[in-house]
């Protein structure tokens, strides 16, 4: 039987066209109506080093990068060496041979397709077209829609002149012919095209940038940091179009400070960073809590601590995001599951910051940063924008005046009679310093109390499954996508399992956790960090005693890992 949910991994040296080949396949599949989920790793070096791009495609919704690849396309010997242990029976292996730099051993059951990529490119007198030969071969072998693929290539190369385009197409067709001559010997085949859906194909970082623009930001300040910088790149291109400003600050302390200043001045403002930057921002986040100033920080998590593993995936900033400031410093923490969330939860996080006048931290992670996925195209008219509460100009204005919901109106600078101070000192209702015990307690109650309704403002959690289950899995961030698939596959095997997916990490929706746990015999919490950070919060804030499952090797979970663990603890 043909297999139509397939994972193609392309691997080689950085600069050989690994990434563009993957992008072409992903775009062609999306144009042919397929769902696409890509995953890539690249070297920490600027030139050279091992690069990998993996495309998973199917007609069915995709939630993760898959267990492993079904097809390996190796451009060089290193790509083969790194991946050879995963060449299991049934895998298709396309590789540069003969005249490549390696001579692989083909394990039993692996279907080999030697394609002379380098030789063909050399004969055409252009080493740069090697990846086009590979692309042609992959297209022919695995039914990657040729029509949409050629459209993608035309769009890509048309700006580089007709000669460049025809050269690349020639290499593509040569690859196709070389593969056709070998004959089809495996079961992997992309489904035939269906009408294309109204989708974007976009990376997690670009999606945060798009969400920021749709969410109405007019000020963005950031400092370069892996793996978050692409967000600034996206915003830099588009924010002047909506009359906004992006500034590259001298460090992350300056970037969050500038965001706070711009927000006080009345503009929707945000920054994005990774763990080290969020660490530096801690003090100013406390200032935002104290002065009740809306700010959004997106943290694209990476391997830590210290400099850690900048290009690798980890979910290890939950402690920092929730408690990373001195004093009792309330904030809202959300975490995205996938690229779609990166768009609409960035909008939502901006709304939360404006409504609750506090810092909001939105957690993404390294696996989503560069993962491109097909997502429904957003409709600008359907985007809900919540503005901060503003003073109506009547009566005497007191910036921190108590109110039933704890939210006090703000006055934009320039408003007559609205003059007030935003201060990091403890203060009374009018903003004047006040260090009296009853005042400090009352102000804490105000600042924390206003967050009680956050759980109703957003969809805080999702439950996957009904009734009673033997195992309930609680997952956050990009691990959710892996668990969704594991739950579906376990259920298909007759195992009673449910999933619980918090998007609001803090304030913790305790009642939701406990209601879910009441329907499960055991609770499993898989997460990509060493300490089991979500498990820690669950033990601290709920009556649940979870089984923590952690990995921290710089890569995401696979569905099989979760499924095996569930079977083990049943």
């Amino acid at each position: 039987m043909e297999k139509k949910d397939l994972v193609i991994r392309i691997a080689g040296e950085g600069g050989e066209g690994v990434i563009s080949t993957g992008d072409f396949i992903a775009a062609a599949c999306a144009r042919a109506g397929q769902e696409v989920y890509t995953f890539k790793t690249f070297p920490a070096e600027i030139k050279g080093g091992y690069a990998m791009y993996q495309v998973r495609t199917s007609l069915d919704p995709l939630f993760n990068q898959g267990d492993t690849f079904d097809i390996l396309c190796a451009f060089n010997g290193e790509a083969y060496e790194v991946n050879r242990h995963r060449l299991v029976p049934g895998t298709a292996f396309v590789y540069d041979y003969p005249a490549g730099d390696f001579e692989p051993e083909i394990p039993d059951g692996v279907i080999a397709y030697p394609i002379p990529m380098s030789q063909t490119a050399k004969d055409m007198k252009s080493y740069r077209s090697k990846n086009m030969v590979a692309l042609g071969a992959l297209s022919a072998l695995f039914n990657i829609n040729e029509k949409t693929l050629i459209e993608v290539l035309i769009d890509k190369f048309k700006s580089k002149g007709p000669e460049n385009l025809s050269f690349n197409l020639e290499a593509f067709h040569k690859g196709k012919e070389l593969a056709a001559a070998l004959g089809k010997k495996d079961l992997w085949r992309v489904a035939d095209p269906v009408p294309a859906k109204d989708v974007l194909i976009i990376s997690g970082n670009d999606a945060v940038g798009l969400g920021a623009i749709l969410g109405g930001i007019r000020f963005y300040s950031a400092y370069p940091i892996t793996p978050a910088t692409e967000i600034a790149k996206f915003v830099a291109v588009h924010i002047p179009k909506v009359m906004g400003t992006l500034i590259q600050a001298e460090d992350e302390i300056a970037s969050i400070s500038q965001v706070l200043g711009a927000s006080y001045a009345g503009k929707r403002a945000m920054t994005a960073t990774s763990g080290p930057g969020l660490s530096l921002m801690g003090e100013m986040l406390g200032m935002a809590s104290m002065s009740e100033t809306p700010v959004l920080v997106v943290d694209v998590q990476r391997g830590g601590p210290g400099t850690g593993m900048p290009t690798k995936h980890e979910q290890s900033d939950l402690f920092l995001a929730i408690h990373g400031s001195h004093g009792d410093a309330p904030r809202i923490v959300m975490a995205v599951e996938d690229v779609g969330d990166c768009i609409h939860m960035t909008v939502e996080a901006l709304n939360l910051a404006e409504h609750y006048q506090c810092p909001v931290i939105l957690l993404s992670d390294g696996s989503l940063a560069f993962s491109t996925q097909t997502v429904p195209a957003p409709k600008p008219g359907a985007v809900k924008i919540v503005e901060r509460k503003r003073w109506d100009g009547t009566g005497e204005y007191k910036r921190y005046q108590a109110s039933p919901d704890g939210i006090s109106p703000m006055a934009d600078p320039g408003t007559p009679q609205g003059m007030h101070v935003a201060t990091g000192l403890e203060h009374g209702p009018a903003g004047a310093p006040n260090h009296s015990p009853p005042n400090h307690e009352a102000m804490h109650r105000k600042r924390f109390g206003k967050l009680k309704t956050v759980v109703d403002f957003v969809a805080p959690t999702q439950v996957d499954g009904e009734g009673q289950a033997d195992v309930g899995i609680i997952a956050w961030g990009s691990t959710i996508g892996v668990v969704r698939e594991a739950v579906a596959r376990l259920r298909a095997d007759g195992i009673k399992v449910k999933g619980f997916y918090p998007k609001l990490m803090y304030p913790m929706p305790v009642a939701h956790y406990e209601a879910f746990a009441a329907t499960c015999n055991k609770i499993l919490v898989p997460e990509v960090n060493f300490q089991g950070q979500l498990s820690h919060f669950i033990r601290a804030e709920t009556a649940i005693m979870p089984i923590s499952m952690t990995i921290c090797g710089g890569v995401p979970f696979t569905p099989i890992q979760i499924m095996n663990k569930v079977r083990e603890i049943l």
Partner: protein
Amino acid sequence: MSIAAVKKTTLKPKDYKSDVSVVWCPGCGHYGILNAIYRALSEAGVDPSQLISISGIGCSSRSPYFINSYKMHTLHGRAGPVATGAQLARPDLAILVLGGDGDGFSIGGGHMPHMARKNVDMTYVLFDNGIYGLTKGQYSPTSRPEMKAYTTPYGGPEEPMNPLLYMLTYGATYVAQAFAGKPSVCAELIKGGLEHRGFSYINIYSQCPSFNKIDTIEFYRDLVEAVPKDHDVTDLGAAINLARQSSEGRAPMGLLYKADRPTLDQRMHAMVEGVNGRPDYDLNQIIDLNRP
């Protein structure tokens, strides 16, 4: 801020006083500087609703509380970048930054070069008393080595920095210095800073009778020396030569340097115009760029 565009008023200096009482020690130089600020605001005619006064932490950083305006009392060392964000968000308003030598040049020192070179349109008044007063007297980046203080019982092991040289080197477009004992000079220079479009830096010596026992009012009075009448304020080299005197036992008082250079917000505005930015830009055009 070039306050030319800001809404004007005809308030008296006292109208810029807030109802928060001033908390400095008797004899503190900061009183003179604060009064000079009231006078400068009055003479420049800045409407209080069109002004944001921003500070970090320290004795002088309390100043915004005492000024009738929008104001931010932020974190130690961070007034500059907070003000940068506010200025870029609202280039139509006047931005006044007030703080001390420790706040600006020690903990906040990493921000100073960037405000200067980016020419952020604001007026930065630095109350330079060569001491940390709020923490009861530790040596600061502008303390003289002979000063014995809280953490330097045998005298300081470091050379002081030269704020004027620093600002001139990093590209500030309005650089001046005064002494709190000369409030009319202070007021004139602050007003000039408010009227200058670009990053204005005014260093004002201010005696701290409580903790800095060597930089007394008399010491500063003897130290300062009016900028020569024939000094050309557009000559950077001449300004640098004057600034270097501060390391030689004399200190220039007056305007050292003034240059016209596009401000950061003007350059940002040019970018908006370059892409035909509009508040009602069709966001579908951005969305469509991300289709497969």
